[in-house]
């Protein structure tokens, strides 16, 4: 009896301690913090992963171009984010944009915000990794023909005037989040946003000059390495978006893997049927399409939803890339629109279909809540419209000021040698 009393008072002392804590600053949960630190690093790894994924698909003479553009995005957006990007996206503001209170991370401290269990700066840096990779995705649309200088300016302007606002709308307290649209890890903010920007820039910049046939990937093993790093990092991208080490994070991890695998398998079956052979490029493209599509729903759908989303993403993206793109003749060179834009749209809409209340707290169409389709639809349309319009303006401004496309001779020799004075691969030693 005495021991029971001691145990009971021992336990009650914790309860008293916990109650006292909640009245003051929210407590740091070390499990959540450890996981989100790792998740942030995983998402960072996706940017070099993207560099290899894209790089292997271009011609030898432009390999460094792709690596440079991707890695400089990591550098430039890391800085932009802490100076102003984070503030515009997440500082309290209005429905459309955040304020400037968090300029230079002013007020972004090492304790958690209200309702959070991780330090504010950790939330900031996790989000920063998303802000870095999103503009890098657009590179796939204009490889082998955009000037590096134009690209630098484009990336900073795009990250500030397109990414930050859309991020604010969905996650930063803006109107799309308020409307109840579901976007767990960035179907709209990242993939549709970048995908539409890709389509717009591809259309304006024009096709590559290739001679008689389309450029073929010069190093598929690197593309596969990049895809593997993307798949790995995506666990941080999706499961980390829970911002906690809990059941939903686990669910997101699982459905991410299922969707990637399903889409990869579906894609190679499509390859087999329509071109006669299962291809390596098809497998990794399918996997990435599945990863893109599961992103908005990763914390909301179950395994059944993930299987369906994976199949749907592969079917729709395959059709876009092999039928629609050749028919219209635009050179979205590495299918940034075809995979990220379209995959993001498929995922955002299917999130409204397959959301399960037991997982993410919201019912989707399959649980009888047809109303969820409306905010999903609006979030997609709004992102498309805004990204298209502002990307167009940014591009035109830069083109007017310094010109965006490289000249014919540079394109023929290759951007690596002309703009960077380097070869990716030495001819002899």
């Amino acid at each position: 009896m005495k021991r029971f009393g001691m145990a009971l008072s021992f336990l009650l002392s914790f309860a008293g301690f916990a109650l006292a804590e909640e009245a003051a600053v929210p407590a740091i949960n070390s499990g959540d913090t450890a996981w989100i630190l790792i998740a942030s690093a995983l998402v960072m790894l996706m940017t070099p992963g993207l560099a290899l994924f894209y790089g292997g698909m271009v011609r030898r003479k432009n390999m460094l171009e792709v690596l440079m553009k991707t890695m400089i995005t990591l550098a430039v957006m890391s800085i932009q984010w802490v100076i102003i990007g984070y503030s515009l996206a997440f500082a309290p503001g209005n429905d459309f944009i955040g304020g400037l209170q968090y300029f230079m991370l002013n007020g972004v401290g090492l304790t958690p915000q209200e309702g959070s269990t991780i330090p504010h700066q950790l939330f900031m840096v996790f989000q920063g990794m998303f802000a870095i990779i999103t503009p890098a995705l657009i590179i796939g649309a204009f490889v082998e023909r955009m000037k590096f200088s134009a690209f630098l300016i484009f990336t900073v302007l795009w990250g500030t005037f397109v990414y930050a606002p859309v991020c604010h709308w969905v996650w930063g307290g803006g109107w799309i989040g308020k409307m109840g649209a579901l976007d767990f890890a960035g179907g709209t903010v990242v993939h549709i946003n970048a995908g539409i920007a890709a389509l717009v820039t591809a259309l304006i910049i024009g096709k590559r000059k290739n001679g008689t046939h389309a450029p073929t990937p010069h190093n598929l093993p690197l593309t596969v390495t990049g895809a593997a790093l993307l798949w790995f990092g995506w666990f941080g991208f999706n499961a980390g978006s829970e911002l906690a080490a809990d059941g939903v994070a686990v669910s997101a991890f699982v459905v991410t893997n299922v969707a990637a695998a399903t889409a990869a398998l579906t894609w190679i079956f499509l390859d087999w049927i329509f071109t006669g052979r299962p291809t390596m490029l098809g497998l990794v493209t399918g996997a990435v399409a599945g990863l893109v599509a599961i992103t908005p729903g990763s914390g909301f759908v179950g395994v059944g939803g993930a299987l369906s989303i994976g199949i749907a993403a592969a079917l729709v993206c395959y059709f876009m890339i092999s039928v629609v793109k050749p028919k219209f003749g635009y050179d979205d060179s590495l299918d940034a629109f075809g995979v990220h834009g379209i995959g993001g749209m498929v995922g955002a809409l299917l999130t409204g279909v397959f959301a399960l209340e037991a997982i993410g707290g919201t019912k989707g169409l399959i649980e009888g809540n047809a109303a969820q389709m409306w905010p999903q639809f609006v979030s997609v349309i709004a992102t498309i419209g805004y990204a298209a319009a502002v990307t167009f303006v940014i591009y035109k401004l830069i083109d007017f000021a310094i010109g965006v496309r490289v000249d014919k001779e540079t394109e023929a020799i290759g951007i690596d040698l002309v703009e960077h004075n380097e070869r990716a691969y030495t001819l002899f030693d």
Partner: protein
Amino acid sequence: MKYVVAIIQPHTLEYVKKELYARGVNLLTMSEVLGHGREKGVTEVYRGNKETGNLMRKIKLEIAVNDSYLKPTIEAITTGAKTGETGDGKIFVMNMEECHRIRTAETGNKAIG
């Protein structure tokens, strides 16, 4: 003096080298090339973009020989590279004007071997 250029299948290179060395032809240059004769090419497909390519990987051997070694060289290459299928390759023989050994400045027949 003759200059022999042979185009062979990559997988026959080791056999050809063995046959050449066995006949005392020990100096050669090899490069990897693309090409085709009458054989059909292989299709490549990248994201639905079909290329009916017809340039296949080949090995090009270049060997400078004294006239007395010409027949053994041709025999060696033929023995080593023949599979009986289309695509075995070809041997081209050209007259060679001069030959110089860089290290010793010898010229002519003495410089070849």
